[in-house]
Structures are given as C-alpha cells and as structure tokens.
C-alpha cells in the first residue's frame, strides 16, 4: 500500500485527482477579474422575475403587502441584490407608476431572528428616504417565534399575534393596519427567504388564495419553481441572478448586475474543471500506457 502511494502519478491521474487548492486559486482569479474588467454579458429576464414585477405592478395603491424578512446577513450575497431592487421598486418605482399611490406594508420576521438587522439595514432606510411614514405607510413587528405555526396563526388572525409593533405601539393605533384582520385583507405576501419560509406561506396563505412571492437563495429555486408552476407562488427572485434581473426591470442596475459576470466565469470554471477531470478519467481508462486500474 505504501509502495503504491509512492508510485509517480501520470499526467492523467494528476488531472483526475486535481489538488482542490488549485481550484480555490482559480476560483478567486475568475471572481476578481470580472470586477476589474466587466464582461457585460446580456442578462435575459426570466418569466419568474417578470411575473414578480408584473404582479406587484398590478396591485392597486393602498393594497396591503405582508413582507416577511426570513433571512440574515449570511445570505446577503444571494438575497441582497433582489431585496434592494424590490425595495427600490416599492418605494420609488411603484409610486411613480401609480400617480404617487403607495402600497401599505406590514413587515415581520418569521423565520430568522436576524431579520431585524436586515430590516434596519435594507428596508427602513429606503422607506424613510422615499418619504414613507412609519405607522401610516408601513409598520415593523420584529421577529416572532414559532415558525410555521406562527405563519398559520397569522393567516387566521393578524391582531392576535401582532398586537404591538416592535416599538410597543398597539396595532389599532397604526393606520397602516386599519381593517387588516386576517389573510383576506392582505393582497400579497413577499418573503426574503433563506430558511424555507416561503413554503410555510404557500401552505397556510397560498392555500387560502393569497399570492406569495419570494426573494430566495439558489438552493430553494427548484422547490419554489414547483410552486410557481402550480400558481401558488406568483414570482421568484432567485439568488443574485434574479436580483440582477429585477434591477434591470426596476431600471437601477446595482450589485446584482455587477456580480452576474462572476456568476458566468465561476460557472464556466466549474464546467472546465469537470471536463478536465473527465479527460483524465477517460484517458486513464482507454489509453494503455496510462496505467489502467
């Protein structure tokens, strides 16, 4: 066994069993280069992103949007671009396209306690900058424990769980929540999701006819496309690529568009590495001089 490990490896074997550290350095290289020299590849808009935009755009001013921040800063690289573009749409683009009319926004954090920080970092500053009035146009209810049970209860009776906002103001003193008692009074739910919270809303709100949209991480996309195909999810802003698409629809290219080139180069690297490994694999298998095992 020891003799076998000391036997010099052929080129093909080295290709097949490439040192992972080489791939790490290559990955750093292909991520950095597009930032220095952008490729500017065209980004097509997927139907899931277009549907997300169209559904929000079709809402009448004054419609209530329940907005669940179920992600933390760890997932910001994936969710950040879509989240920022969505806030840009809600605070600037929507009022511009609806004669100054605004959506009424109730914000909770159901799946991730860190949603509170995400609210402070990415939601509140944009709402305030756009002139949205706290209490009249939007309200923040903080993190509510309970996961899927909380989401189910919220559908049946919003005031029973959201009795006070984050700052202790009772719900009846918040004009934005006037007449909002259960799922029937909410037009759409949007989830910033890295913990599968969209599925909770699909099961407990979507099943009752409320449309659910999601800004989610890449690994959740295949599952949510299933919901999208069945009409339970009205749109998906999937990872940074979806964020880039929404940025283009909103007309404000940002970090999503900037990072899409790295998406191309890193994916291409993975494909090239897979091909290289298979060249080694096939050569060792079919070329007699390479030491077939």
């Amino acid at each position: 066994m020891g003799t076998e490990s000391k036997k010099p490896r052929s080129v093909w074997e080295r290709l097949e069993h490439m040192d992972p550290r080489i791939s790490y350095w290559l990955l750093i290289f292909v991520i950095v280069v597009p930032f220095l020299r952008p490729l500017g590849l065209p980004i097509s808009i997927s139907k899931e992103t277009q549907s997300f935009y169209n559904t929000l755009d079709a809402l009448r001013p004054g419609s209530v949007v329940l907005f669940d921040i179920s992600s933390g800063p760890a997932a910001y690289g994936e969710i950040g671009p879509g989240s920022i573009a969505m806030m840009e749409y809600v605070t600037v683009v929507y009022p511009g396209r609806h004669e100054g009319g605004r959506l009424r926004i109730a914000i909770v954090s159901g799946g991730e306690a860190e949603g509170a920080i995400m609210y402070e970092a990415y939601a509140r500053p944009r709402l305030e900058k756009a002139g949205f009035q706290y209490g009249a146009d939007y309200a923040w209810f903080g993190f509510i424990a309970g996961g899927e049970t909380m989401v189910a209860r919220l559908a049946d009776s919003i005031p029973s769980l959201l009795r006070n906002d984050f700052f202790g103001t009772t719900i009846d003193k918040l004009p934005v929540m006037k007449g909002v008692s259960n799922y029937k009074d909410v037009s759409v739910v949007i989830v910033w999701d890295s913990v599968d919270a969209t599925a909770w809303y699909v099961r407990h709100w979507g099943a009752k006819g409320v449309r659910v949209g999601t800004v989610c991480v890449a690994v959740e996309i295949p599952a949510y496309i299933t919901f999208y195909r069945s009409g339970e999810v009205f749109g998906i802003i999937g990872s940074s690529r979806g964020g880039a698409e929404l940025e283009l629809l909103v007309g404000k290219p940002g970090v999503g568009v900037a990072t899409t080139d790295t998406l191309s180069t890193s994916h291409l690297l993975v494909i090239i590495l897979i091909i290289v490994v298979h060249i080694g694999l096939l050569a060792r298998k079919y070329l007699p001089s390479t030491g077939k095992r």
Partner: protein
Amino acid sequence: MSWIRGKDVPVGIVFICGLIVTVAYFINVPAVVGVSEAIQTWAVVIAGFAIGLGVVNMVVFHSDSIRKRASGQWPYSVVFLVIFVAQTVSGFFDLAALKNPVYVWLYSNIFSPLAEAMYAILGFFIVSAAYRAMRVRNIETAFVLVSGLLVMLTNAPIGAAIWEGFPILGKWILDVPTTAGNRAIFIGTGIGTILLGLRILLGYERGYIGG
C-alpha cells in the same frame, strides 16, 4: 404520583391538542376553532420561551466549559460569553436596540462579516466538490452531470452567449423533470408527515420526549 413523572401525561396533552387542531382544520365548529386558535397562540409563546431556554442552555454550557478548562474549548467559550454579554447589554441599554451604536457596531463589524464569510466559503467547497463528485460512472450519473451542466449554463448568462439553446434546455429541465420530481417528493413528504403525526398522536412515536 409517579404518573406525573411518566410520559403518559405529555403524550396525553399532545393527543388532545393535536386532535383539537386537526378537527378545527376540517370542521368549522366555533368552540373547537376557538380552542384551536388558543393552542396555536400558545405554541408561538412557547416557541419564544424555547429561544430563551436555548440562550440559558448556551450560557450554562460555556460557563461549565470555562470552569472545567475544557481542552481546546474554553477559550472559545470565553469569546462567546464576552460577545454574548456585550451584545445583550448594549441591546438592553436602548429600547430601540437596533439603533444602539455599540450593538450595531458589534453586529455590523463582527457577526455580519463572519456570517457572510462562512457562507462565501461554501462557494469554494462547491467548486471542488462539483468536479470531484460529478463523474460519469454509469448512465444515471451521466444524466445528473448533463442536467447539472445545462442548469449551470442556464443560470449564468455566458450559457446563452455560447449557444442560445442552453437556457431553453436548462429551463425545460427545471420546469418539467425537476418539477415532477419535486411534486413526488412533496406528496411523499406529505403522506409521511400524516403518518408521523398519527404515530405521535397515538403515542407510538415518543422521540420528542426522550424516547
């Protein structure tokens, strides 16, 4: 009073609560629905307490670790307790805790970068795992590899730049076989959940109270 310490009481409570919530879901009897809603609200409150319990558990665990000078562990426990106390105290100083400068600084400059870095490291593991694991060994692995490559070329704009057909094929894989597979998984999970729920309600499954 040994029956109080036994597992029949919690199993009985679970049976009654589960039955009420299940019945209320299917049959609209106001009295039952009211009790069901109260139970769900309690569940949310209990979940809040569970988080508090988790915090206490963490503090006790790491305090023990420091007291016993647990090998290779206690310095990290010190770091945990220091950060824990700093974050908690700075949060309590200001009712609108998220605006407290110390709280925000700690969160923005310690937790947030570390969390993002941990997540970003996944990218490196995924790259090395992809080329080491995605190897054609038989017809099934060939399907997985080709599907994976097509979806990658769909997600990255460079796929369409190489050949316009890549996104069409990739979208078809996501829309048709993936959706079909996911639906099968969802249905299977649903049936499994019903069966597990029945086993819990009837007391056959007691893992949640320690077996």
